[in-house]
């Protein structure tokens, strides 16, 4: 800002060199701005306008006219309440599970891994080298009726032979947890790794046992990572439809699946758009509340 200000103020015929320089920030911003406007701002407005459209009586499927019908939102929401609740529930459970799995993992990599640190980090990211879809399909194999998990469970006395894992909420939540695990692990690792080990020593020096040190020093200092990780997991998980589609059944449908089928199968654009907006707004509100509550405002 100060830079721009200074550049425009020096108007005493300094010559073209300075004028050119004052354009530099805009030129540097241009590619990003153009990209955002073309692929985010314009589509958002187009989506917003679609959400209040109506199909005229007798018109062809896929033909809509603008009538500013805000009741679309109410209709869409009322018809899909269950899927909304399920989306946030599944995403919430997956986020908590991912946190429970990632925290010890990130802690171990940050404090105990020594020279293996980089290898372990690569291993965390390694699944990303294969496609998201493939990995999810692989899970349906793993959890399949003839797969290793079910076969093992059947050997245990408390499960009868009718046990299934695919096409259950369990499978969907497992898929979500697995697919977003690196998004949780990496920010956690980053904030744990930044902790000065001397503060941990200082805590021990000041009469705190290992567990108290963890509770009173390590956890509070890793909060930025916890917040970042949970957001990076929860937000995409809430809107995800791949896991529910590949690992679930009709009664585990999430809101992403509804939006997907409204857009592509039913070609009911206004409802799909209204559902998308409602999802976005809900996530935005939840995230804002969460960040306020966790007291890490400086993150945003």
């Amino acid at each position, binding site marked *: 800002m100060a830079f721009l200000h200074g550049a425009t103020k020096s108007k005493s015929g300094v010559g073209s060199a300075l004028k050119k320089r004052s354009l530099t920030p805009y030129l540097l911003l241009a590619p990003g701005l153009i990209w955002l406007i073309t692929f985010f701002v314009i589509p958002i407005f187009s989506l917003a306008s679609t959400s209040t459209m109506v199909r005229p009586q007798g018109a062809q499927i896929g033909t809509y006219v603008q009538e500013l019908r805000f009741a679309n939102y109410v209709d869409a929401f009322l018809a899909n309440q269950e899927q909304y609740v399920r989306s946030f529930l599944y995403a919430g459970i997956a986020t908590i599970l991912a946190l429970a799995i990632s925290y010890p993992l990130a802690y171990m990599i940050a404090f105990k891994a020594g020279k293996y640190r980089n290898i372990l980090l690569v291993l965390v990211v390694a699944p990303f080298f294969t496609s998201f879809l493939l990995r999810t399909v692989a899970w349906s194999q793993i959890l399949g009726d003839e797969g290793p998990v079910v076969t093992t469970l059947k050997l245990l006395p408390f499960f009868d032979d009718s046990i299934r894992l695919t096409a259950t909420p369990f499978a969907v939540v497992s898929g979500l947890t697995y697919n977003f695990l690196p998004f949780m692990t990496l920010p956690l690792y980053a904030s744990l790794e930044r902790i*000065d080990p*001397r*503060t941990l*020593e*200082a*805590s*021990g*020096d*000041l*009469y*705190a*046992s290992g567990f*108290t040190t963890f509770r*009173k*020093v390590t956890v*509070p*200092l890793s*909060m930025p990572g916890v917040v970042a990780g949970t957001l990076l997991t929860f937000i995409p998980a809430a809107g995800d439809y791949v896991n529910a589609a590949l690992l679930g059944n009709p009664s585990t449908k999430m809101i992403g699946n509804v939006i997907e089928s409204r857009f592509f199968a039913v070609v009911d654009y206004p409802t799909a758009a209204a559902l998308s907006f409602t999802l976005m707004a809900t996530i935005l509100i939840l995230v804002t509340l969460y960040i306020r509550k966790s007291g890490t405002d400086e993150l945003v």
Partner: protein
Amino acid sequence: MAKTKVSQDTGDLVLNRISKYYGDFCAVDDLSLTIPDGSFFALLGPSGCGKTTTLRMIAGLEEPTAGTISIGETDITTQKSYRRNVNTVFQNYALFPHLSIFENIAFGLRRRGIKEVKDEVEKALNLVELGHLSERKPGQLSGGQQQRIAVARAIVNRPEVLLLDEPLGALDLKLRRQMQIELKRIQLEVGITFIHVTHDQEEAMTMADTIAVMNQGKIEQMGSATELYEAPKTAFVANFLGQCNLIKVKVQSRSGGKVVVSAKGHTFEIPESRVSSSNDALLLGVRPEKLRLDDKGVNSIKECVVTDRSFVGTSTQYLVRTPWDLELVVFEQNDEGLHDLRVGDKVSLEWDSEHTFGLDGAQDVNAGADLDDDE
């Protein structure tokens, strides 16, 4: 000022033949040390000499490979750090960034289950004269302020021993001087044993009652600042504390309380009590400020040449070359007796016998001289 004196007699801190090995590397080598209760003790040495390792073993952050550590009658060698009544002021303070200054200081008290911490914390804050900052976060404080908070955070627990690990290393010179005086005042006020680890000889000399000079995991010499400076026992101590001229000499005679030595045709005298070796080859030591640019005394070297001169405010420092090409450092006070010599001027040097000392001649003349002062 608040009365914070801890009067219970906790007893001396005794390190008995402790060693610390990291694999094959010996950081601390069979070290024995008794630090009297209530004293201000400094462990002085270059980086890598084992002083911080020694401190960390006292704190319980490292376990000695061999030997025992005890305070008074209690053996604390294997006691966990959080059970020891010892607190540390860490090198970079290690304040808890997520807690307010008040909570930082209250941390130790709360961990020991003390509910009413307000009075104690305020007393500690007043001791370091930062009572007005209790609601701030560490990040909002200057280096000097953080340093004092680190002291307050340790001292509020009234430890038997307070360990300071290069606590002033990160401060600028002026602030460091100020904090040296401040720490000394606090120590006198609370009467706790302070063990101060530093590589800065001036800092150690300013603050400590007793200094132990460490080198390569061993203690070279222990004593008051004056003792170490005026009568060093090794070349390392002579060079590490201040500057020193060491001249290789041969003993001619030892009689009548005097040792007569010679070097390249010049003879000098050293009081026998100040010679710490019975060898015939000695190092004659004399501090630069004890040398005079004159030729009257018993100990003198004539026909020297000034090869360098620098003005440093309180004194002018000359580099003077002897006829046998040895360079000696001479400090001359900037008062009315100033000679104001130029490079190339002919000059004679002389000094008093009682200002010299004799060290074992088998040592490296430069031991401890060219060490990097920084960590």
